[in-house]
């Protein structure tokens, strides 16, 4: 699978490459979200916060000072982890959990969005635009180059995230997180400092997601608070893992692939017969989500893995 993806650019055209790049982007970000919700059971509906802050941190450094994303990455991670830990501290210290925790994550994403709307040095509501250099040379240092470079970057990220998550899941952290997810009181009785382990899940998840933001900034080159922090972005992030299988390693990847390919082909197919329906993508997401929730509440991956005898 990894080999096929590495060799894909040899066969695929630019359009196919951009679709797979998008799939990998959602697979990676979904994997990051999954650490918090799938492993540790903490539902975040505001992950766009970390994408946005990560994007603006690295993008802003590049925009104002010409500092490349390899340095900006660290600032992005630092800010996102700090934000995540503030949210985590407020929630876990004062026993805010479940739906209320999710509301808290939405609130943080929303007021950060409003904050960035008023941050004129980063473009405010009018957006921030990174200079687009020639697209045919690989300027790895500044992460500017042709689509192929971004494709390989997100492919490596995806592979790295998969490796990290599978290691985490098999280590003490993975067992402790799952115990907390299944029953927090029982977890405490077994000597688990649930506060500390939940904070660790938030830190890892937000750090991973900040990297999505850095990628987003340099791939799309334009950032608008209205878009990047929007709750619909947060929902988009979690659709992949929810449909693929929350808490599984391959669910986020499978879900991202299915959603992106199907929704793209539906839009393209309808456009080909002359139907341009605005919002058809959202309707499609809704229908798929409804179907999965009703018929495969654990997502598509677990039954698929059983069928393929992988488990």
């Amino acid at each position, binding site marked *: 699978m990894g080999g096929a993806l590495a060799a894909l650019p040899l066969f695929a055209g630019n359009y196919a490459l951009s679709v797979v790049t998008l799939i990998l982007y959602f697979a990676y970000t979904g994997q990051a979200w999954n650490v918090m919700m799938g492993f540790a059971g903490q539902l975040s509906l505001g992950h766009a916060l970390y994408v946005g802050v990560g994007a603006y941190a690295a993008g802003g450094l590049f925009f104002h000072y010409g500092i490349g994303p390899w340095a900006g990455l660290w600032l992005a991670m630092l800010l996102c982890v700090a934000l995540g830990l503030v949210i985590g501290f407020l929630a876990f210290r004062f026993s805010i959990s479940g739906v209320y925790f999710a509301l808290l994550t939405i609130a943080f994403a929303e007021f950060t969005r409003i904050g960035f709307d008023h941050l004129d040095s980063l473009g405010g509501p009018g957006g921030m635009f990174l200079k687009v250099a020639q697209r045919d040379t690989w300027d790895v240092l500044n992460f500017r180059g042709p689509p192929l470079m971004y494709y390989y970057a997100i492919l490596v990220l995806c592979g790295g995230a998969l490796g990290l998550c599978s290691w985490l899941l098999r280590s*003490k952290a993975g*067992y402790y997180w799952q115990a907390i997810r*299944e029953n927090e009181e029982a977890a405490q009785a077994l000597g688990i400092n649930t506060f500390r382990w939940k904070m660790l899940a938030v830190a890892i998840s937000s750090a991973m997601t900040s990297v999505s933001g850095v990628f987003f900034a340099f791939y799309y080159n334009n950032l608008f608070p209205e878009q990047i922090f929007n709750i619909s972005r947060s929902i988009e992030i979690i659709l992949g893992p929810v449909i693929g299988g929350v808490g599984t390693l391959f669910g986020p990847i499978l879900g991202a692939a299915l959603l992106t390919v199907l929704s793209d082909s539906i839009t393209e197919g309808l456009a080909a017969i002359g139907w341009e329906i605005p919002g058809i993508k959202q309707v499609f997401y809704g229908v798929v989500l409804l179907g999965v929730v009703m018929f495969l509440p654990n997502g598509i991956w677990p039954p698929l893995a059983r069928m393929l005898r992988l488990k």
Partner: protein
Amino acid sequence: MSLLEVHAISKSFRGLKAVSDASFEIPEGSINALIGPNGAGKTTIFNMIAGVFPPDSGSILFQGKPIHGLRPHQICAEGIGRTFQIVKPFAGLSVLENVMVGAFLRESSAAGARKVATQILERLQLAPKRDLPASSLTLPDRKRLEVARALATRPRLLLLDEVMAGLRPTETDQIVQVFRDLNRKYGTTILLIEHVMRAVMALAQHVGVLHHGEVIARGTPQEIVRHPAVLESYLGEEADL
């Protein structure tokens, strides 16, 4: 020195005294039971020892060290394992994984935790079911899983909260045998809070009786069933054990 010393602990909930001035000691290596009618304060005492909430006054010493006011995970790290009256399995994990979670307290590697967990499952006769999801177990097996998980943290004192409740007499006898073995072969000290007199009589060496939050009698099971205050308040005049 006793393993656990409870000195004059009290607890009120909104002015209602649940436990008042309760004191008792648990010698190392013994099996002890705390009995009493519903609402006598058994679970309140249990929760204070396990760190769910602190006593309003009084002290709890474990191995000579004060532990009242510590949080549940700290109590567990000190060496006190507990089960829940209403079982709380990690339903999405396998039986083995459930026990591994407990074993990780003293083992940092997954391989080490797996080894400890496997031994404990054998001790509790759950080994054949190790790969089943915990959600598929029957109630008696779930109770055993609670015990296995607590044992995996290598406690010196095991607190059992109505672990026989809801079991049939034959199932009760089986689990009584398990606890007796644990105590005899591995020296585990046990404090059980129990309603099922059949199990208490068969297991415990020392019994404390609670009534309205006070310890009204302490002694061997044989002494307790003849104790006038106990007969009057709990077992009833016609108790036939």
